């Protein structure tokens, strides 16, 4: 074959604006770029000069689908500086809030954004015509995630009840217990989801990934943990900046991140699962075993199964927390600023969301750094696509384009989240 170019001008069913450009020359992929042209959003710069207590609410606006990741990473980073560590019921409520976000986000992605790819539908609306039972299950499951967000966060999008030190108001026992029947239904529905998505047709595509995720001694990770990788890293999150180095590439408004050696890492469900499988609750582990999911999943298309396993986990964890819940004496710890630098890393549905802040003695933010998981996954997506396209270069162009889009959606990318430069240089001639 001679050279040809494949372009996807707007990648559908992902958050934000991105495009794909592939230049094929004879028998090789000459150039491949995941082009992110979403305008940069300057969040880090907005934060400079603001009070440290404002960081959670400001950064939550980076994303409508994973605000909890931003709220939590910002709170933990600030509490690192103030030396406060909410535990007991406050800590449990934070995990419960994260359960809500994972359920809501994962269910949306599994059923509405990713399943149509495997089943050959252009979108969830056409899927619903032939498979109404799938979409109805998705809506009911998603609603339970919404309810958790509403009870804990005050509303389903952009929660308003979270602050450095804890919550403005803690829910009553009765309010949480009212969710139990729906969660019990959700547990079965989530297990059924694992069975259904495990039966989808998957391309044969295994990759040797360097997975990176948080790792906690007792829990599947949401809010806390050490930074570990399948290459053997085991570091405190304060070492993040030496572990993943950000760099600007011309074709993306979202900074790329690679190891100091220049290689990409893989964040998100596959990484969490590979590095924390033994921390799953029994139901989630059994659901994974029942469909023959190995200890490490290295086919990125199968991330849809791992997401479903994580929904089972999130429902089990929500039930565990609610059943043991006693409201905290105070909904939040009183926090007092002091000068310093703090770090927060939590597991957004798409992978580690990292925040670093420096504040002065008055609590004013002097410097901020935020890295969204999609930024980090960009290089990995490009690497997957290069490997995926190479042996499939002779596929009809439409088919290849379609499969490439599906491969991008393996990462549930949140492009809007990933675009926030600190520096903007304008060159004029």
């Amino acid at each position, binding site marked *: 074959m001679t050279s040809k170019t494949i372009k996807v001008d707007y990648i559908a069913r*992902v*958050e*934000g*604006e991105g495009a794909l450009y592939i230049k094929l020359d004879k028998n090789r992929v000459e150039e491949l770029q995941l082009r992110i042209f979403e305008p940069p959003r300057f969040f880090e710069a907005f934060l400079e000069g603001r009070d440290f207590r404002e960081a959670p609410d400001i950064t939550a606006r980076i994303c*409508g*689908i994973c605000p909890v990741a931003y709220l939590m990473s910002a709170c933990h980073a600030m509490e690192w500086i103030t030396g406060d560590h909410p535990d007991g019921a406050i800590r449990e409520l934070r995990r419960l809030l994260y359960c809500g976000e994972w359920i809501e986000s994962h269910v*949306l992605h599994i059923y*509405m*954004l990713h399943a149509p790819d495997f089943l050959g539908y252009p979108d*969830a*609306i*056409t899927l*619903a*015509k032939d498979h*109404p039972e799938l*979409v*109805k299950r998705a*809506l009911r499951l*998603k*609603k339970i995630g*919404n309810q958790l967000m509403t009870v804990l966060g005050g*509303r*389903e*999008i952009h929660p308003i009840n979270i602050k450095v030190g804890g919550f403005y108001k803690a829910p009553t026992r009765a309010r949480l217990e009212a969710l139990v029947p729906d969660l019990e239904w959700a547990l079965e529905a989530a297990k059924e989801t694992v069975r259904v998505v495990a039966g989808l047709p998957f391309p044969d595509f295994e990759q040797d990934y360097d997975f990176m995720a948080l790792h906690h001694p007792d829990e599947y990770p949401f809010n806390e943990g050490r930074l570990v990788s399948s290459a053997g890293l085991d570091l405190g999150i304060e070492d993040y900046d030496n572990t993943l180095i950000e760099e600007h590439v011309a074709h993306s408004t979202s900074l790329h991140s690679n190891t100091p050696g220049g290689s990409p890492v893989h964040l998100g469900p596959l990484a969490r699962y590979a590095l924390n499988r033994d921390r799953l609750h029994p139901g989630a582990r059994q659901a994974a075993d029942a469909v023959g999911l190995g200890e490490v999943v290295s086919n990125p298309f199968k991330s849809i199964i791992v997401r479903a396993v994580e929904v089972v986990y999130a429902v089990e964890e929500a039930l565990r927390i609610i059943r043991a819940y006693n409201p905290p004496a105070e909904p939040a710890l009183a926090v007092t600023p002091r000068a310093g630098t703090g770090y927060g890393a939590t597991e957004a549905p798409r992978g580690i969301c990292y925040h670093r802040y420096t504040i002065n003695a008055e609590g004013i933010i002097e410097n901020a750094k935020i890295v969204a998981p999609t930024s980090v996954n960009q290089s990995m997506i490009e690497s997957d696509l290069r490997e995926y396209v190479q042996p499939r270069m002779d596929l009809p162009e439409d088919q290849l384009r379609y499969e490439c889009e599906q491969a991008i959606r393996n990462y549930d990318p*949140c492009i*809007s989240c990933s675009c926030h430069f600190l520096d903007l240089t304008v060159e004029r001639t």
Partner: protein
Amino acid sequence: MNRLLIGIGNRFRSDDGVGPVIAERLEALALPATRVCIASGEGAALMDLWREAEAVYLFDAVSSGKAAGTVHRLDAASQTIPQEFFHYSTHAFSLAEAVELARALDELPPRLIIYGIEGGSFRAGRELSPPVAAAVDEVVERVSAELGATAPDAG
């Protein structure tokens, strides 16, 4: 006839608050057999809200390029809802998708009317711009006439 009026929008974003403003004005009229609520616009929550209703009226700001204050009235029974009308996120599942998904699932309420009010300013702030404030009066008048005409019978 069990009727539901839903105002969608963010009242801290100038004209984006037009949906909730209209809903509250209509609520003050205490129309018979009519519930009024405010929603964020998240699609799954909307589908859940309107599940039991026989007639649903939605009010939301739109940005389609027409002059601020232009009122669009869409009847979901007879037309598909253009996605770009109510798009506030490429990922979240919003009003247009909720209507089309409900149609695909055969879960549309028997009557679903959408009033889209063209916004002018979506900046931070609680004030509606003058043409949008004028559109509020128009929509309240049209809807109360429409609802008054549908007798709230015992059905």
